[in-house]
């Protein structure tokens, strides 16, 4: 186990506002109603071509929205420098950015952010908080402009998957803190390609639903990154006591 290491505290403090378009709005539909709606939709889909075509069209539209969000901003690099271009991408997605020796820049609930960062041509970006953003593989083109990034938080990003993790190796020299908590598409196969990030000191892999065996994965990742503190799952979680292994009561003799 790595020695306890104090976090850089570069991850943004408590974020408790709604994100508007990023969060699902409003009331929670009760379980029973949701199931009936889904069944009705499936029935209509299987019996009518127009319903199937409409659903296909809506799906394509959702996907093209994500593509639009992740379009390339690398053309901004020659005019404003790589750090501002990358920061602009993150801020447009709804994430937060911290330049070196400056405060966190974060968009408000309407998606507006202060344009002061356009002046920071030479100031590198230290930390990025891209939680709940819709970054995907193509969008990482823009994120990788930030060559001296030290802390990256990709918590609960719905489109970050194993392919995206294999793209993080250019940040190996500077990245010290990475958080992937709650990403639904990250599995142990993507975590295997984090071994390039040898300067990583803190890795958060808690609450990954796609990882098949969290305890074993934690052990293997710790072996892979010896200098890194891996936060996630308690490795003993996978061990369940069977009926014959129940803790014995104190009256029984202790074996010599």
């Amino acid at each position, binding site marked *: 186990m790595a020695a306890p290491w104090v976090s850089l505290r570069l991850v943004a403090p408590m974020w408790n506002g709604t994100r508007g378009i990023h969060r699902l709005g409003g009331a929670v539909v009760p379980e029973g109603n949701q199931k009936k709606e889904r069944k009705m939709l*499936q029935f209509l*889909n*299987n019996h009518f071509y127009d319903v*199937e075509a409409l*659903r*296909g069209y809506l*799906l*394509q539209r959702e*996907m093209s929205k994500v593509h639009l969000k992740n379009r390339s901003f690398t053309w901004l690099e020659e005019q404003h420098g790589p750090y501002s271009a990358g920061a602009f991408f993150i801020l447009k997605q709804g994430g937060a950015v911290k330049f070196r020796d400056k405060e966190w820049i974060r968009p408000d609930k309407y998606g507006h952010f202060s344009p002061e960062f356009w002046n920071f041509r030479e100031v590198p970006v230290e930390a990025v908080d891209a939680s709940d953003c819709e970054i995907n*593989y193509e969008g990482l083109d823009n994120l990788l402009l930030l060559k001296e990034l030290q802390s990256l938080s990709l918590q609960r990003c719905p489109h970050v998957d*194993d*392919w995206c*993790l*294999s*793209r993080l*190796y250019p940040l190996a020299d500077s990245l010290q803190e990475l958080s992937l908590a709650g990403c639904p598409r990250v599995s*142990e*196969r*993507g*975590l*295997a*390609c984090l*071994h*390039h990030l040898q300067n990583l000191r803190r890795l958060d892999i808690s609450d990954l639903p796609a990882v*098949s*065996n969290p305890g*074993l*994965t934690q052990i*293997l*990742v710790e*072996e*892979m990154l010896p200098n890194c503190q891996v936060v996630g799952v308690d490795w003993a979680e996978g061990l369940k006591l069977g009926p014959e292994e129940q803790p014995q009561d104190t009256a029984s003799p202790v074996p010599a």
Partner: protein
Amino acid sequence: MIRRVLPHGLGRGLLTRRPGTRRGGFSLDWDGKVSEIKKKIKSILPGTPCDVLPDTSHLPPEHSDVVIVGGGVLGLSVAYWLKQLENRRGGMQVLVVERDHTYSQASTGLSVGGICQQFSLPENIQLSLFSASFLRNINEYLAVTNAPPLDLQFNPSGYLLLASEKDAAAMESNVKVQKQEGAKVCLMSPDQLRNKFPWINTEGVALASYGMENEGWFDPWCLLHGLRQKLMSMGVFFCQGEVTRFVTSSQRMMTTDDEMVTLKSIHEVHVKMDHSLEYQPVECAIVINAAGAWSAQIAALAGIGKGPPGTLQGTKLPVEPRKRYVYVWHCPQGPGLETPLVADTSGAYFRREGLGSNYLGGRSPAEEEEPDPANLEVDHDFFQEKVWPHLALRVPAFETLKVQTAWAGYYDYNTFDQNGVVGPHPLVVNMYFATGFSGHGLQQAPGVGRAVAEMILEGSFQTIDLSPFLFNRFYLGEKTQENNIM
């Protein structure tokens, strides 16, 4: 009142009315008559199954624009791109004929499932890059409403190729070509190798090339299933049967050099059903040979290779089945989670399988030791003598390993230059090939499928130019050699 009184006095037999007699008809066996009338009405009414015509639901349709022989990943990929790139929706009727619906001997299912861009030919690199982007966005390409998204179980761990002294120069120039085409590959010296992967023994290794992105391995069954599902939703017909005959019509034409050439065109395909003599003649316009290891038989049916040797008519399709073994072993002290697919200088390769210290790998035998491809029996002595020593030399931890299981599969091996055959045949004008990839068909299937579809629909390759892979090269003797075959 009267009703209550009468049964008492006069008894049942006289006054009880039977329902039928109320209408005035006088009949003793009314129930029988009713059922007879019902039967007659049923047989006249439409919509009842009529026993006169036999059931033909297992036979393929009588007409189809395109017939694809072979339902493996290449055949399905061609079908997918044909339907995707057609100009009008429903414009092309495609039929996929597969001999074995369990895919028990098909190369796709038995494959190790790797994808890498470390080739020497630019075309191979581009095909692999396109396939990587296809697999990455597979849920956009193969989206079917109501079906759950596909999980390819892709491991992006990369490929590590090791080269000895004499191959180091070739590897350097290959990596240069790969970087030019856009693959993310880096060269490593033995010291860097030891630093990164301490479990490697770098004795005899002069140089290594390591793929960082878009390389790894995935589950081929998932891709096959996803393609099948999408094709069924797009309206492609599937048929289980064996192609036994092509009916061709020929035309004699004069070339510009005043030579007589016989051009053939297939207009009917006979598809024979399993375990019976029944066959269905399918009228078709285009036939695609994607039969994998058995492509040469299909080509021979069309008359390819029937002529004096040395002529274009006598040039056979040089694809034959070659058996390759894959062994799975368990080694608790073996390399960790970051292990790429390692290909040794001797040709032996291995990769991790899952989280539980299991590994799988194998080695291509030398030409003179080729096993008999008549069946898929595994030779375990081959592992003991030819594979294990090299693995144990390269990774000392593999000296104590325990083989768990093994299987064998076919390569559709191109004996001429180990690269695929794509495109039309010069003499049989409507037969297109998509076969002969000698072990890297799975990773190039999406790109090749698109190339063949473009060739059919537009007449030439539009995105990736695969002209070095045309059939003509067998007659002209121009080899498109690929140096990095495992």
